[in-house]
């Protein structure tokens, strides 16, 4: 048996991730919701189940599909472990996104101490997306084959180098065994290794910044420091165990999808991207592919990366939506986006036909520039309204505009998921 002091010593070594004492207010569950910690837990679970799957899976077009069938039909818990891995991957996107939203909406991104972690966070989020997407190809069924065909084709709209990038990613002109090999290597070695390194870097920077940005509180009983053991650790273990149990139970009922074997000659109808990319797919319905798949996503990504260095008059870290006014502006922005986006989608489907009105113009203008100008004009009107009604400072404007884009992307995704039937025609969910 270890003596208490020795145990304490081991514990402090294991707890390099936390200080010995933390502010009481910052461990309130409804402030962080434990989202960062849950993301870590799910990544560890993903590594565990991923290694198990690697004992059975064979990464070649001739064998991949059969090895999945073998896994599901002849290995005890084979289907179950695959379900966990699949569900866990999707939950990771959700949790990492929610974690980023919590950090954003409490303004925990200000330079110099927290901006680096904001950037690291975006990089890790992209890695998680990329990991999900590369994993999507592994079963080599109709779903994975066509989703990967469509998404890798998007790169070919980058001017000049685009087609070469597509060939490079695929290892050839089409999605083949070379693509599967490339994706397998990224999915099982390059991404997880990079992710682990960035995670360690991320935690270290959280410690350097003095833990999570503590919420602003006026209540006396929330002030002061508490020992991390047991106050925080027990909470973390409890939340982690509950989350594990939820994932394990859900995985019993939610089977990971497996369609027919991949057939390069037949696309299923409709082909839908995985749900986390379906908002981009919906944008492709309305914009020239160079604009919808390259310009707009890169522009938004640039906005995310640059966000900590906009000239903020105040550092309101720890206060939701920067201020009460910021919260109102964000809610109104969300509502505007929620109404405007469906209207525009329907209008573009039935009323606006730039390509028919200007048949002689190249499609990059009629399908690219014109819709962007139209949308830009409406967005400018929204900004004018925002300024007139709330007179927000930069902090509040950024919160509101971010909420606007978030809701817009959510509506686009929901439209793609539930309102597009065969041939990608707009229809009600119950008609599909």
């Amino acid at each position, binding site marked *: 048996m270890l003596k208490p002091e020795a145990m304490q010593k081991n514990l402090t070594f294991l707890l390099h991730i936390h200080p010995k004492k933390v502010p009481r207010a910052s461990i309130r569950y409804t402030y962080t919701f434990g989202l960062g910690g849950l993301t870590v837990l799910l990544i560890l679970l993903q590594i565990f189940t991923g290694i198990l799957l690697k004992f059975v899976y064979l990464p070649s077009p001739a064998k991949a599909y059969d090895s999945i069938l073998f896994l599901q039909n002849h290995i005890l818990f084979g289907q179950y472990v695959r379900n966990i891995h699949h569900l866990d991957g999707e939950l990771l996107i959700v949790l990492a996104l929610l974690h980023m939203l919590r950090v954003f909406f409490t303004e925990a991104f200000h330079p110099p101490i927290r901006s680096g972690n904001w950037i690291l966070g975006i990089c890790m989020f992209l890695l998680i997306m990329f990991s999900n997407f590369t994993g999507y190809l592994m079963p080599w069924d109709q779903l994975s084959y*066509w989703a990967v*065909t*469509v998404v890798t*084709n*998007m790169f070919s709209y980058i001017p000049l180098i685009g087609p070469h990038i597509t*060939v*490079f990613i*695929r*290892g*050839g002109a089409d999605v*083949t065994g*070379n*693509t599967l*090999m*490339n994706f397998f290597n990224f999915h099982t070695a390059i991404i997880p290794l990079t992710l682990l390194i960035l995670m360690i870097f991320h935690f270290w920077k959280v410690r350097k910044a003095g833990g999570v940005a503590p919420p602003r509180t006026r209540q006396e009983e929330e002030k002061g420091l508490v020992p991390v053991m047991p106050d925080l650790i027990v909470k973390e273990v409890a939340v982690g165990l509950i989350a594990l149990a939820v994932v394990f139970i859900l995985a019993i009922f939610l089977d990971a999808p497996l369609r027919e074997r991949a057939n*390069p*000659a*037949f*696309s*299923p*109808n*409709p*082909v839908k991207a995985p749900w986390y990319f379906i908002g981009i*797919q919906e944008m*492709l*319905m309305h*914009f*020239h*592919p160079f604009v*919808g798949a390259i310009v707009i996503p890169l522009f938004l990504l640039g906005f995310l990366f640059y966000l900590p260095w906009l000239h903020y008059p105040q550092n309101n870290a720890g206060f939701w939506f920067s201020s009460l006014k910021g919260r109102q502006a964000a809610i109104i922005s969300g509502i505007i986006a929620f109404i405007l986006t469906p209207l525009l989608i329907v209008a573009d489907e039935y009323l606006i036909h730039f*390509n028919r009105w200007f048949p002689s113009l190249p*499609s*990059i203008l009629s*399908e690219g520039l014109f819709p962007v100008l139209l949308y830009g004009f409406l967005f400018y009107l929204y900004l004018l309204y925002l300024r007139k009604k709330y007179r927000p400072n930069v902090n509040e404007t950024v919160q509101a505009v971010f909420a606007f884009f978030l809701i817009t992307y959510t509506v686009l995704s929901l439209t793609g998921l539930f309102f597009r039937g*065969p*041939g*990608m*025609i707009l229809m009600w969910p119950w008609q599909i």
Partner: protein
Amino acid sequence: MSKKISHSKINPPPEKEEHAPKITTDTSRRSFFRKIWGWVALAAGIELAGLSIPFIGSGRKKQTKEKSGNFTAIAQVWDIPEGSVLPYRSGRLYICHLKDGGFLAVSIKCTHLGCSVEWDEKKKEFLCPCHHSMFSLNGEVINPPATRALNIYPLKIEEGVIKVNLENPIQRKHYNKSQETYA
């Protein structure tokens, strides 16, 4: 006194080492080697990158087959009624018999993002299931998001037999009459 001097020689105070001009003008052996190591590290980096490039880009080599330039016999002219198509799935193309009697071997791959287009016999058009692009019988875009006409393959007709070169898809912006082959 002498002790003090020797001490500072062996172990100079840290501020002095950080003094920028001193490092740049220092021509001592140590700074020379420091530079050498820098260059060696750079060389090592380039070596490692150079090693990986052939591996990362190995896909195309694994795939290259000798291009034979052969034409494959697919169908006979009278198999396909005018204004209709014959799908040839294993070659991922359609043989289209246009209204004016000409033939085209049109690729199955939508030029938007690469899904396979389906022929709608009632509407007489190709429809892409991914993003609802539509193409006419000759492969021309009727409805975006696709931005250019479907690819075609070299096609020739010998004694009523339609033959297609499956290895060389031809990209085209638009359809024009010179692309057709007549029986």
